[in-house]
């Protein structure tokens, strides 16, 4: 059943507010939601209440919630677009190797290119290049011989993802980074723990610009669903469009991964769920997926912080524990109806 998109967006916005307040209130120190609201309203209007609670809510948890929202929304949008690009519902930034590519790029620059990293943009740029290289490699391998099968796409994606994660871990361990295990976990499984106010601007801008641009591309993205030849006969220059979208998605993925590591499965599950609710047309699908992704990652991070407290679980472990079984279920379903995978 399809619901009106507007109603869905209102419900999701409400869910986003509720999950954000929950994320701000819960943790080692529990703070009453009313107090949280006071602090947030105060903070937004420029005169935040002082004190320990205010510091926990505004300085520690708030940037983390915002980063979770931005990264969740961005990964969901990137996943939605990649699924249209390869015409396969099993695509996702993580499974196609893009996230791992971004991690590898970022780590290489951090370890070997201290000078470039000092620029501030070095790490996200390297992450962008890594994500782009991984995507193009997977796409080229999956397309060898002209037709793309689900099996080849997944195999190529998983292989590239493994190689790049291994490379990332290797570089970090060999570089004898002071807290190498933690940084291996961060770059291969992702985490939002490093969120700081002054590092939020870049991912937020990347999401806003990338998301807005992709939303204007809703019509050609729909056309891609009818396949290469179909889209071509409907006036879409598929080669150029695909290249442009590869660059745009890689940019978004690169910037996000540079500040959150390679978080998996958000871009797989959220677009699929959104499609079930509002259908496959991208004008409705992209905003719904973005809001859904934000809610999902805030909640996943809340579980990661609190489930085994005081120990913190990498948020990628939480998303993989939910997403892995979901992926298997979809794989089973799609092998039964191979027709839909093109």
């Amino acid at each position, binding site marked *: 059943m399809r619901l009106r998109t507007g109603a869905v967006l209102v419900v999701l916005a409400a869910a986003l507010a509720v999950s954000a307040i929950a994320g701000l209130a819960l943790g080692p120190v529990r703070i009453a939601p009313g107090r949280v609201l006071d602090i947030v309203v105060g903070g937004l209007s420029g005169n935040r209440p002082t004190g320990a609670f205010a510091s926990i809510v505004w300085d520690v948890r708030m940037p983390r919630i915002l980063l979770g929202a931005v990264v969740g929304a961005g990964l969901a949008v990137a996943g939605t677009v990649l699924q249209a690009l390869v015409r396969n519902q099993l695509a996702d930034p993580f499974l196609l190797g893009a996230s791992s590519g971004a991690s590898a790029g970022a780590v290489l620059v951090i370890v070997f290119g201290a000078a470039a990293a000092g620029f501030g943009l070095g790490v996200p740029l390297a992450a962008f290049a890594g994500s782009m290289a991984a995507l193009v490699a997977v796409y080229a391998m999956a397309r060898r011989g002209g037709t793309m099968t689900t099996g080849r796409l997944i195999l190529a994606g998983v292989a590239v993802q493994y190689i790049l994660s291994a490379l990332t871990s290797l570089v970090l361990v060999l570089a004898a980074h002071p807290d190498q295990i933690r940084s291996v976990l961060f770059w291969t499984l992702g985490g939002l723990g490093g969120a700081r106010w002054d590092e939020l601007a870049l991912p937020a801008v990347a999401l806003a610009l990338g998301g807005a641009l992709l939303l204007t591309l809703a019509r050609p993205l729909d056309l891609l669903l*009818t396949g290469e030849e179909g889209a071509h006969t409907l006036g879409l220059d598929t080669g150029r469009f695909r290249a442009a979208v590869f660059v745009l998605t890689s940019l978004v993925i690169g910037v996000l991964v540079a500040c959150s590591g390679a978080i998996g499965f958000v871009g797989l599950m959220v677009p699929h769920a959104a499609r079930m609710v509002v259908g496959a047309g991208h004008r409705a699908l992209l905003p719904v997926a973005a809001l859904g992704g934000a809610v999902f990652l805030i909640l996943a991070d809340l579980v990661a912080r609190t489930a085994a407290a005081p120990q913190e679980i990498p948020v990628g472990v939480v998303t993989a524990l939910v997403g892995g079984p979901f992926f298997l279920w979809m794989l089973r379903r799609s092998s039964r109806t191979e027709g*839909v995978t093109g």
Partner: protein
Amino acid sequence: MTYGTAPARPVELAVEAVRYATDGHTLLHGIDLTARPGETVGVVGPNGSGKTTLLRCVHGALRATAGRVLLDGADAAALTVKERARRVAVVPQDAGGTLGLTVREVVAMGRSPHKRFWEQDGPDDVRRVADALETVGAAAFAARRFDELSGGERQRVLVARVLVQDPGLLALDEPTNHLDIRYQLEILGLVRALPATGLLVLHDLNLAAAFCDRLYVLAGGRVAASGTPREVLTEDLLAEVYGVRARVEVHPDTGSPHVVYLPVSAGSW
């Protein structure tokens, strides 16, 4: 800016010495074909004779290895993808998976060549889509998922899509192969009545004879014969190209040639 508000004029098509080769195999050996504005031209021939390849060279999914495709005298290769899609619309054999787009969304795609990519559908587009759905008898399932339809329903939806695309040349690849006989007749009648030139790949020689002004018979990537159905569909040609014995009669009502196949004699295997 809006374009495509005036109905399209029928396009004059000229295929000149088109050759197509891939992986060392030559699929088309220099095809010449013309269609005057408004004419309905059929392409027939046995499996593997190059019909679909020729059609794809005409609508631009394939780029001819040599030779030219002219639309109203201008080389089609010089057009942008979008300009070409405004002149030439295609009904493919199948549209593949659509990840859950609705019938209405699939038909509305036909407006894309007339739109800037960020432009939304206006009231005029919505009306055209509704009319087209009505015309092909698909209005009742407009809100259903395209990939849940039967083959025949999908084909009618794809015909509705070219109706809203409003082209000057319609390229149809086996437009009737999933349809039961009533819809075959309706769809072909509809295509003929459209103010567009038609290029149809057809298997059924009798439908081709009844609905096409002229036919091209392909065999082994070459034009084996061309002309009016009466000139082309002869017992000798059917024996030579298809390797079948047939009797060609005159249809009592339409006057077009009508092929009656004779059983293949056991000895000919």
